[in-house]
Protein backbone atom coordinates (compact mmCIF):
# COMPACT_ATOMS: atom_id res chain seq x y z
CA UNK A 1 0.00 0.00 0.00
CA UNK A 2 0.91 3.66 -0.17
CA UNK A 3 3.64 4.79 2.23
CA UNK A 4 4.66 8.32 3.12
CA UNK A 5 8.01 8.94 4.76
CA UNK A 6 9.31 12.11 6.38
CA UNK A 7 12.82 13.12 7.33
CA UNK A 8 14.22 14.06 9.68
CA UNK A 9 12.25 12.50 12.52
CA UNK A 10 13.51 15.15 14.95
CA UNK A 11 15.04 18.59 14.47
CA UNK A 12 16.38 20.81 17.22
CA UNK A 13 17.22 24.39 16.24
CA UNK A 14 18.16 27.63 17.91
CA UNK A 15 15.61 30.39 17.55
CA UNK A 16 16.34 32.29 14.35
CA UNK A 17 17.75 29.29 12.47
CA UNK A 18 16.03 27.83 9.44
CA UNK A 19 14.27 24.45 9.37
CA UNK A 20 13.34 22.07 6.55
CA UNK A 21 11.39 18.82 6.56
CA UNK A 22 11.09 16.49 3.58
CA UNK A 23 8.25 14.21 2.60
CA UNK A 24 8.40 11.29 0.15
CA UNK A 25 5.55 9.10 -1.05
CA UNK A 26 5.90 5.62 -2.52
CA UNK A 27 3.17 6.48 -5.02
CA UNK A 28 2.13 9.56 -6.96
CA UNK A 29 -0.14 11.84 -5.00
CA UNK A 30 -3.10 13.78 -6.35
CA UNK A 31 -2.23 16.53 -3.87
CA UNK A 32 -0.16 17.06 -0.73
CA UNK A 33 -1.34 18.60 2.50
CA UNK A 34 0.67 19.81 5.48
CA UNK A 35 -0.53 19.82 9.06
CA UNK A 36 0.95 21.09 12.33
CA UNK A 37 0.31 19.42 15.67
CA UNK A 38 1.31 21.20 18.84
CA UNK A 39 2.29 19.08 21.85
CA UNK A 40 -0.91 17.67 23.33
CA UNK A 41 -2.99 19.05 20.50
CA UNK A 42 -4.59 17.84 17.32
CA UNK A 43 -3.46 18.25 13.70
CA UNK A 44 -4.22 21.67 12.21
CA UNK A 45 -4.33 22.15 8.46
CA UNK A 46 -1.66 24.45 7.04
CA UNK A 47 -1.85 24.21 3.27
CA UNK A 48 -2.66 22.07 0.23
CA UNK A 49 -0.57 21.87 -2.96
CA UNK A 50 -2.11 20.38 -6.08
CA UNK A 51 0.03 21.17 -9.12
CA UNK A 52 3.31 19.57 -10.08
CA UNK A 53 6.19 21.86 -9.07
CA UNK A 54 3.91 24.17 -7.09
CA UNK A 55 5.41 26.51 -4.51
CA UNK A 56 3.36 28.35 -1.92
CA UNK A 57 4.40 30.72 0.85
CA UNK A 58 2.77 31.58 4.14
CA UNK A 59 4.81 34.30 5.85
CA UNK A 60 7.99 32.46 6.97
CA UNK A 61 6.80 29.06 5.67
CA UNK A 62 7.54 27.87 2.12
CA UNK A 63 5.94 24.70 0.76
CA UNK A 64 7.00 22.87 -2.40
CA UNK A 65 5.43 19.99 -4.34
CA UNK A 66 7.79 17.97 -6.48
CA UNK A 67 7.60 17.69 -10.26
CA UNK A 68 6.69 14.02 -10.05
CA UNK A 69 4.10 14.71 -7.33
CA UNK A 70 5.78 12.16 -5.06
CA UNK A 71 7.69 14.46 -2.77
CA UNK A 72 7.30 17.73 -0.94
CA UNK A 73 9.12 19.98 1.48
CA UNK A 74 8.33 22.56 4.13
CA UNK A 75 10.90 25.23 4.92
CA UNK A 76 10.63 27.65 7.82
CA UNK A 77 12.82 30.74 7.75
CA UNK A 78 14.07 32.22 11.03
CA UNK A 79 12.27 29.87 13.40
CA UNK A 80 10.43 31.19 16.43
CA UNK A 81 9.41 29.38 19.62
CA UNK A 82 5.83 29.43 18.34
CA UNK A 83 6.92 27.08 15.53
CA UNK A 84 7.40 24.21 18.00
CA UNK A 85 5.37 21.14 17.14
CA UNK A 86 5.16 18.14 14.83
CA UNK A 87 4.78 18.77 11.11
CA UNK A 88 3.00 16.14 9.06
CA UNK A 89 2.57 15.76 5.34
CA UNK A 90 -0.36 13.76 3.98
CA UNK A 91 -1.97 13.01 0.68
CA UNK A 92 -4.40 10.82 -1.23
CA UNK A 93 -3.02 8.45 -3.83
CA UNK A 94 -3.40 9.72 -7.39
CA UNK A 95 -5.80 7.99 -9.73
CA UNK A 96 -8.15 6.79 -7.04
CA UNK A 97 -11.62 7.96 -6.15
CA UNK A 98 -11.08 7.96 -2.40
CA UNK A 99 -10.25 11.65 -2.13
CA UNK A 100 -10.75 11.71 1.60
CA UNK A 101 -8.34 8.91 2.42
CA UNK A 102 -5.17 10.66 3.52
CA UNK A 103 -1.97 8.76 4.19
CA UNK A 104 0.13 10.66 6.71
CA UNK A 105 3.88 10.63 7.18
CA UNK A 106 5.22 9.92 10.64
CA UNK A 107 5.99 13.59 11.17
CA UNK A 108 9.00 15.74 12.00
CA UNK A 109 9.20 16.97 15.58
CA UNK A 110 10.60 20.49 15.74
CA UNK A 111 11.96 21.97 18.95
CA UNK A 112 13.19 25.55 19.07
CA UNK A 113 15.60 26.71 21.77
CA UNK A 114 15.26 30.40 22.68
Amino acid at each position, binding site marked *: GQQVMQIPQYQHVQEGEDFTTYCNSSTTLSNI*QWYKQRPGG*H*PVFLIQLVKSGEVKKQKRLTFQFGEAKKNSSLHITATQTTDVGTYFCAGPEAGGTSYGKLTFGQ*GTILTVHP
Partner: protein
Amino acid sequence: GAGVSQTPSNKVTEKGKYVELRCDPISGHTALYWYRQSLGQGPEFLIYFQGTGAADDSGLPNDRFFAVRPEGSVSTLKIQRTERGDSAVYLCASSLGLSGSTDTQYFGPGTRLTVL
Protein backbone atom coordinates in the same frame (compact mmCIF):
# COMPACT_ATOMS: atom_id res chain seq x y z
CA GLY B 1 -18.78 28.41 14.82
CA ALA B 2 -17.96 25.40 16.96
CA GLY B 3 -15.31 23.00 15.82
CA VAL B 4 -15.32 19.21 15.78
CA SER B 5 -16.05 17.79 19.20
CA GLN B 6 -15.31 14.31 20.49
CA THR B 7 -16.48 12.52 23.58
CA PRO B 8 -15.21 11.23 25.87
CA SER B 9 -11.83 12.94 25.92
CA ASN B 10 -10.36 9.98 27.77
CA LYS B 11 -11.56 6.41 28.02
CA VAL B 12 -9.98 3.68 30.11
CA THR B 13 -11.31 0.18 29.65
CA GLU B 14 -10.35 -3.39 30.32
CA LYS B 15 -9.25 -5.88 27.73
CA GLY B 16 -12.25 -7.58 26.15
CA LYS B 17 -14.72 -4.77 26.82
CA TYR B 18 -16.79 -2.86 24.26
CA VAL B 19 -16.34 0.90 23.76
CA GLU B 20 -18.06 3.62 21.78
CA LEU B 21 -16.40 6.86 20.76
CA ARG B 22 -18.51 9.78 19.57
CA CYS B 23 -17.78 12.55 17.08
CA ASP B 24 -19.81 15.72 16.41
CA PRO B 25 -18.65 17.31 13.16
CA ILE B 26 -18.76 20.95 12.20
CA SER B 27 -22.29 21.90 11.26
CA GLY B 28 -22.86 21.61 7.52
CA HIS B 29 -19.91 19.30 6.89
CA THR B 30 -21.04 16.27 4.92
CA ALA B 31 -17.78 14.33 5.13
CA LEU B 32 -16.51 12.78 8.35
CA TYR B 33 -13.27 10.90 8.95
CA TRP B 34 -11.86 8.65 11.66
CA TYR B 35 -8.14 8.25 12.25
CA ARG B 36 -6.06 6.51 14.91
CA GLN B 37 -2.82 8.01 16.16
CA SER B 38 -0.30 6.04 18.16
CA LEU B 39 2.48 7.74 20.10
CA GLY B 40 5.15 9.13 17.81
CA GLN B 41 3.22 8.31 14.64
CA GLY B 42 1.12 10.19 12.17
CA PRO B 43 -2.65 9.70 12.04
CA GLU B 44 -3.65 6.40 10.45
CA PHE B 45 -6.78 6.44 8.30
CA LEU B 46 -9.63 4.20 9.43
CA ILE B 47 -12.82 5.18 7.60
CA TYR B 48 -14.60 8.11 6.05
CA PHE B 49 -18.25 8.92 5.47
CA GLN B 50 -19.88 10.99 2.81
CA GLY B 51 -23.28 11.69 4.29
CA THR B 52 -24.63 8.55 5.93
CA GLY B 53 -22.64 6.06 3.90
CA ALA B 54 -19.09 4.84 4.35
CA ALA B 55 -17.20 6.06 1.27
CA ASP B 56 -14.05 4.17 2.23
CA ASP B 57 -13.63 1.79 5.16
CA SER B 58 -10.40 0.21 3.96
CA GLY B 59 -8.48 1.40 7.02
CA LEU B 60 -10.51 -0.48 9.61
CA PRO B 61 -8.01 -3.03 10.98
CA ASN B 62 -10.45 -5.90 11.53
CA ASP B 63 -14.08 -6.74 12.15
CA ARG B 64 -13.89 -5.64 15.77
CA PHE B 65 -14.04 -2.06 14.51
CA PHE B 66 -17.24 -0.57 13.17
CA ALA B 67 -18.48 2.97 12.60
CA VAL B 68 -21.89 4.46 11.91
CA ARG B 69 -23.31 7.81 10.94
CA PRO B 70 -27.06 7.15 10.76
CA GLU B 71 -28.28 10.70 10.17
CA GLY B 72 -25.31 12.10 8.34
CA SER B 73 -24.09 14.16 11.27
CA VAL B 74 -22.86 12.55 14.50
CA SER B 75 -20.73 9.44 14.11
CA THR B 76 -19.88 6.66 16.53
CA LEU B 77 -16.82 4.46 16.31
CA LYS B 78 -17.45 1.12 17.99
CA ILE B 79 -14.75 -1.28 19.11
CA GLN B 80 -15.64 -4.77 20.29
CA ARG B 81 -13.49 -7.06 22.44
CA THR B 82 -10.87 -4.38 22.95
CA GLU B 83 -7.20 -5.39 22.98
CA ARG B 84 -4.22 -3.61 24.52
CA GLY B 85 -3.00 -2.83 21.02
CA ASP B 86 -6.11 -0.71 20.44
CA SER B 87 -4.74 1.89 22.87
CA ALA B 88 -4.24 5.13 20.95
CA VAL B 89 -5.74 8.55 20.34
CA TYR B 90 -8.75 8.28 18.06
CA LEU B 91 -9.14 11.42 15.98
CA CYS B 92 -12.23 12.54 14.13
CA ALA B 93 -12.21 15.12 11.36
CA SER B 94 -14.85 16.68 9.15
CA SER B 95 -14.89 18.58 5.88
CA LEU B 96 -17.33 20.19 3.50
CA GLY B 97 -17.28 17.04 1.37
CA LEU B 98 -16.70 18.68 -2.01
CA SER B 99 -17.24 16.19 -4.78
CA GLY B 100 -14.19 15.03 -6.72
CA SER B 101 -11.57 16.77 -4.63
CA THR B 102 -9.71 16.65 -1.36
CA ASP B 103 -11.02 19.41 0.82
CA THR B 104 -9.62 20.65 4.12
CA GLN B 105 -10.12 18.30 7.03
CA TYR B 106 -10.71 19.88 10.44
CA PHE B 107 -9.69 17.69 13.32
CA GLY B 108 -11.27 17.31 16.73
CA PRO B 109 -9.30 17.06 19.97
CA GLY B 110 -9.39 13.25 19.95
CA THR B 111 -10.35 10.54 22.40
CA ARG B 112 -7.46 8.90 24.23
CA LEU B 113 -8.32 5.22 24.60
CA THR B 114 -6.38 3.12 27.08
CA VAL B 115 -6.99 -0.61 27.22
CA LEU B 116 -5.65 -2.21 30.39
